[in-house]
């Protein structure tokens, strides 16, 4: 597998996106137009730029990350285009910006490598918490928080002297910064956390002082997210903390206590928050309140059910009936138009991404790089799992974006960061 093969696979992913868009238009009765060409160009540009950045500044980067990411982005984009072409036009801009950002990160780290991130870990922690706090800024300020769908996750910037509002979800980038912090912290302390515990005896707990900062960081993040009513992101961050602690120490005690904590927190949240109760009941029986809380889940189920084995065909279903089909429920849209086969393709692609990511982590000899690439992989894998599980009703809806597939600039930007860091980390391991 070489850089050239990577380029070919990127071109193939861009072609898939273009073919999908062409099929959507064909189904609608119109013939090929500029959208098909634009889609191909934007995909080739986005991943091509990162590819060229890898060639120039990280020539040994794993060549499989970009093609898999391109594949997922292509399928997501096709559905976004199918549901709302105007949104897709915006998404093309986001893709291009994400590609340039990833290339920029690779360039930034060209000499110093990811190791430089390790030194600034508390800066990243502060930045992450700051980003998480941003949506709480009062409404009257030029930069202020905004409530979307009952969660206060968005920041809206009112550009002065122009009637334009820019919004973004700072939490998406914050979780990547938190992963860098955790990787850096654990790289220094993992030995203490894994070995000290052994000497304590039957109750295998590490010394509290080693865990302190991690717990404080986790606690701060959760409090903010709880206050913003973003339980999906809380769950994701918690899973990330637990996953990375386990990866760093190899101690099952973290996983077990983490699961217990999730169950306890879930019960408390169920009793304390009305919107959690609503979500749980919509999960257990979406048809009990079909026109209300259960509507989204139920529509998703109808969509996937009508999709059956091979789907209705691109542009031939009605995924526009599902609320939030371009973001949270993009998987249901894929299930409707590409059927079980398409859904399996998506899940396979995520599984391959996780395989490649953990493969990179396993090969790393440097602890920081190992935990960083492992943590980023856990982040993508868990997020994909949580939201897809929510759509197919294995878990309650968590309201996360589907990594790389959903419409959204913040989410794509975070994914681009992840791709750049994974690529760079894998490059350094093979020099």
């Amino acid at each position, binding site marked *: *597998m070489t850089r050239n093969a990577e380029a070919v696979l990127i071109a*193939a992913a861009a072609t898939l996106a273009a073919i999908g868009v062409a099929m959507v238009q064909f189904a609608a009765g119109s013939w090929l137009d500029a959208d098909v060409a634009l889609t191909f160009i934007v995909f080739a540009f986005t991943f091509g730029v990162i590819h060229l950045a890898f060639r120039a500044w990280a020539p040994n980067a794993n060549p499989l990350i970009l093609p898999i990411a391109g594949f997922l982005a292509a399928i997501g984009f096709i559905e976004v285009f199918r549901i709302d072409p105007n949104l897709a036009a915006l998404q093309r801009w986001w893709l291009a910006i994400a590609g340039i950002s990833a290339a920029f990160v690779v360039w930034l780290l060209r000499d110093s490598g990811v190791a430089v991130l390790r030194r600034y870990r508390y800066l990243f922690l502060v930045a992450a918490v700051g980003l998480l706090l941003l949506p709480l800024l009062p409404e009257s300020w030029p930069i202020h928080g905004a409530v979307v769908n009952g969660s206060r996750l968005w920041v809206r910037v009112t550009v002065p002297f122009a009637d334009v509002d820019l919004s973004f979800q700072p939490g998406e980038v914050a979780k990547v910064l938190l992963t860098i912090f955790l990787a850096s912290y654990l790289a220094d302390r993992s030995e203490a956390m894994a070995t000290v515990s052994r000497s304590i005896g039957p109750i295998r707990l590490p010394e509290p002082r080693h865990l302190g900062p991690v717990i404080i960081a986790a606690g701060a993040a959760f409090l903010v997210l709880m206050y913003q009513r973003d339980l999906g992101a809380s769950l994701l961050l918690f899973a990330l903390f637990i996953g990375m602690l386990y990866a760093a120490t190899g101690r099952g005690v973290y996983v077990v206590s983490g699961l217990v904590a999730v169950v306890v927190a879930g019960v408390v949240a169920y009793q304390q928050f009305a919107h959690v109760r609503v979500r749980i009941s919509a999960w257990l029986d979406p048809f009990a309140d079909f026109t209300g809380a259960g509507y989204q889940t139920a529509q998703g189920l109808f969509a996937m059910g009508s999709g059956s084995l*091979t789907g209705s*065909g691109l542009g031939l279903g009605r995924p526009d009936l599902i609320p939030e089909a371009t973001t949270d429920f993009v998987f249901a849209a894929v299930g409707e138009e590409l059927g079980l*086969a*398409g859904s399996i*393709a998506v899940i396979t692609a995520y599984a*391959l991404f996780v*395989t490649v990511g953990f493969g990179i982590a396993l090969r790393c000899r440097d602890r920081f790089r190992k935990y960083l690439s492992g943590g980023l992989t856990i982040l993508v894998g868990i997020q994909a799992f949580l939201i897809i599980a929510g759509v197919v009703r294995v878990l309650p809806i968590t309201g996360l974006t589907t990594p790389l597939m959903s419409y959204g600039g913040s989410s794509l930007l975070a994914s681009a960061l992840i791709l750049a860091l994974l690529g760079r980390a894998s490059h350094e391991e093979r020099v």
Partner: protein
Amino acid sequence: MPALILNALKILFLLLLFLFLWQIAGAIRVHIGGRGSAARGKGPTELVVLRGDVTKGKRVKLRGSGHTVGRSPDADIIIDDPYASDFHARISAENGQTRVEDLGSTNGTYVNGRRITAPTGVVKGDTVQIGKTMLEVR
């Protein structure tokens, strides 16, 4: 008629998706090195002499039962190096893991530039220094 074409296109598109994934999966398999985990599938198979004189030549195949390395004519791998002890180190392969062990040599055994005090696992690309002789595990 259009319905038939649309259906055929749909199936074709799905096939393309899986063809793409198949390519990726194939590349991952090559990457990992055939079957088994990276550690098992691509364990070290030979020693390459980077610097110094080894009577067996520039490349020595590693065998499962292990080798002793030293200046003594009775060592499995004999090195002509005044800084090496008679039986300087042992290189063994157990459960697919290759390990280097110092046999109480005078000048020590170094893995990747660090003096080892206990049996140390090595993977492909690691260097083992015995006296002035430099070996690489491949």
